């Protein structure tokens, strides 16, 4: 079975500092990887997915199959980045998401 691990529950960073959220997964096949974000009082929404190779709101994530990781990075954190971030995996050909436990990010002004 697939598993997604987000080791740090809470991450506090100062505004303008870099932020990196770690995500490791266990799955023997070729997964689809996602980062979902939940801002205060809002619903869970897609931030980015590895296959699109986009930068969304300054965030990027690179899939490293050798290290089975999909870490989320942003060079300069903004106050509006304060939110809950979830890494999620979808098996190839399977439409169900397996989520990590999430990271609470707090950006200190």
């Amino acid at each position, binding site marked *: 079975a697939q598993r997604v691990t987000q080791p740090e529950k809470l991450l506090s960073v100062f505004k303008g500092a870099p932020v990196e959220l770690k995500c490791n997964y266990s799955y023997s096949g070729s997964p689809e990887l996602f980062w979902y974000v939940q801002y205060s009082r809002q*619903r*869970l929404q*897609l931030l980015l*997915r590895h*296959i699109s190779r986009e930068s969304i709101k300054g965030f990027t994530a690179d899939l490293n199959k050798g290290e089975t990781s999909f870490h989320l990075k942003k060079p300069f954190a903004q106050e509006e980045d304060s939110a809950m971030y979830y890494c999620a995996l*979808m098996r190839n050909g399977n*439409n*169900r*998401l397996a989520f990590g*436990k999430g990271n609470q990010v707090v950006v200190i002004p």
Partner: protein
Amino acid sequence: DAGVTQSPTHLIKTRGQQVTLRCSPKSGHDTVSWYQQALGQGPQFIFQYYEEEERQRGNFPDRFSGHQFPNYSSELNVNALLLGDSALYLCASSPWAQETQYFGPGTRLLVL
């Protein structure tokens, strides 16, 4: 388009009771998935419906059942409620076989 909608927003039940949660998918979406999110945890997949049939199921007991209607809306039913069923229940929709899922605001269920 209001996106994915869920009702009710909050619900309080007692142990042993039964509950029905409802979900309307985003316009143009025909696939509905349900997730359970316990406090401090990430969402866990319960099951998925497409063409009015359960297509996939996660590791949840038979007390959890569902239904999809011809208009693609869906219900989640939980029988014989346990305290441990207290959680936020999320509905997500997508077009069939597309990976990006759109989530509703959730229904928060408290079992006393």
